[in-house]
């Protein structure tokens, strides 16, 4: 066991524990905070995988924007459910059983795949991944079209969000 492996196992265990809390805690605010913990864990895993850029993006986009939005939504909809009542649908045990079953069968299937046991190749230190990624996002022979479509998508979401948030009785 190397140090990296120990760190990975610790972070993974913490992240999964936080994820279980997200889906099981009764108080919404607590599960939103657990979500932040899980997202931080994922950011650390990104860093362990050698992508500092996405680790930072994870913190900025998921924690900085999405999780904060969710916390706002939780606060705005407070008292909608009393924490004394169960937050689960009646058949949740079946859902848990099905998820566990699918998980173990997928792991079993994957264990028959050679690539499952791959170890990481060393990245070419002369190549700056972020530069190449940035260039290919704007290269028409690369990924310029998806990049532009994403901008249209964000615009559509913006228009939609404003439309929903606007108070139509007042204007």
């Amino acid at each position: 066991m190397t140090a990296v492996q120990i760190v990975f196992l610790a972070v993974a265990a913490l992240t999964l524990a936080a994820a279980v809390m997200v889906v099981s805690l009764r108080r919404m605010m607590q599960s939103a905070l657990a979500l932040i913990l899980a997202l931080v864990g994922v950011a650390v895993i990104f860093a362990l995988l050698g992508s500092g850029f996405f680790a930072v993006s994870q913190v900025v986009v998921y924690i900085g924007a999405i999780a904060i939005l969710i916390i706002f939504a939780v606060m705005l909809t407070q008292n909608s459910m009393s924490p004394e009542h169960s937050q689960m649908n009646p058949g949740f045990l079946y859902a848990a059983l099905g998820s566990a079953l699918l998980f173990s069968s997928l792991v079993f299937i994957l264990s028959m795949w050679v690539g499952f046991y791959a170890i990481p190749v060393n990245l070419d230190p002369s190549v700056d991944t972020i530069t190449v990624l940035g260039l290919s996002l704007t290269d028409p022979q690369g990924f310029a079209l998806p990049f532009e479509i994403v901008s249209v998508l964000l615009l559509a979401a913006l228009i939609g969000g404003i439309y929903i948030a606007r108070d139509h009785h007042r204007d």
Partner: protein
Amino acid sequence: MPTVNDFLLILPEVVLLIWALLILLIDLWIPDTKKYYTAVLSAAGLVISAGCAFALLGRTGSAFSNMVVLDGFSSVLSILFLLSGLAAVALAYDYLKRNAAQRGEYYTLLLFSIAGMMLMASANDLIMVFLSLELLSIPLYILAGFFRPRLASEEAALKYFLLGAFSSAILLFGIAWIYGSTGHTDFPGIVASIDGGRANYLLLLIGAGLLLVGFGFKIGVFPFHMWVPDTYQGSPSSIGAFMTVATKAAGFAALLRVFLVLFPAEAPIMAGILWGLSAASMIFGNTVAIAQMNMKRLLAYSSIANAGYILMAFVPYGNPVIAQEAVSSALFYLLAYALTSFGAWAVMIALEPAESDGLLLQDFSGLGRKYPWLGAALLISMLSFIGVPLTMGFWGKFYLFKTAVDGSQIPLVLIGLLTSLVSAYYYLRIVMFAYFKPGEPQIQPGRWASVVAVICAAGIFVLSFIPTPVFQFAAQMIMGMK
């Protein structure tokens, strides 16, 4: 550098997106009493884009390094989406006015959604499949809730969103496994990797299964249908009509292309699953529709059944000869279904008063006597849904069943025939109300919905005399698909 050719091949989409942005701006200066102009402008944009798509008909090629392809399949579907959009604009104009929801965002979001559908039909890279799926869905979440703060509309939007986001996540997970297996997201790269024997079969199979679940939600087949009735009923009716036709067609476009191109090797296993989905959808949709007294819900369950019919022809897709035939008959059926479904929805929208969640079947009583044209349109649509001769619905089902027989899916064809018989009961019950029950239905102000109804009914009837050329056109268009 991007070449002119790159932009030429996606010209209809580019035109439509730019037009949507222009409408967004121009609409700010159009006063609330004159929203007529916004509707006309967006219709003009759709017509221009359709003109570009027509001009590109027969041209093939790929653009932006295989991100999108233009071929007959994508051209025909693009035109279908644009015409559906035109119908959605025509149905919306009077209807939104009646419901005091005349806002320019409707048209902008609709145009965004159509552009997403067109990109989906021509996507040649899993990144594009996912992105165009989101581009078509996110505006539709808003449009489904367009009548907010009305409760039914908000509920429709919320359910559509939760199920849509959930299915997107599953679809995305499937794409991740395909990437893991092949190292590519572009279709040619994935195919090359599979043909070269470098791809892992099991991972591909997992990916294909997850993709099927994701697309299953979008096309609304049993058991991924739970959002369909509530969303179609609670959404504005013009959006309900648009979703039954265009969203379903877009889902099928991606499903057909992805499975034909990427997963021919998985066909033996996938065929069983498709078989089950198809049979369950036909049985479930048609039996539950019997109990419905609300027209919108009835049409929603009918759309689940129709998704099952289209899937039927696609079950033996692993056989290349059958696959060609299956795609042409699916295209043909989508055209027939578009005309039929828009016809039925248009009759309902013409009669639907403000603030309603859809007409009850009793509300059609006396329609045939009082408004012979609308009554005839309703009659023709219902006969076409059942698949009675002299309608496009008959030929649509004929080609689907023929393909399934050629692919030796006899039990499935029998289920299809039997469920069609069952469906005759509830479709004819509407006709019975319209023609044999006394009543005084009241047509709502504005004539555009009636115009759409009559045009669709005429199309169903007239095109049914020339099914072979239409089918051959579809077959010829998809020749170069792979």
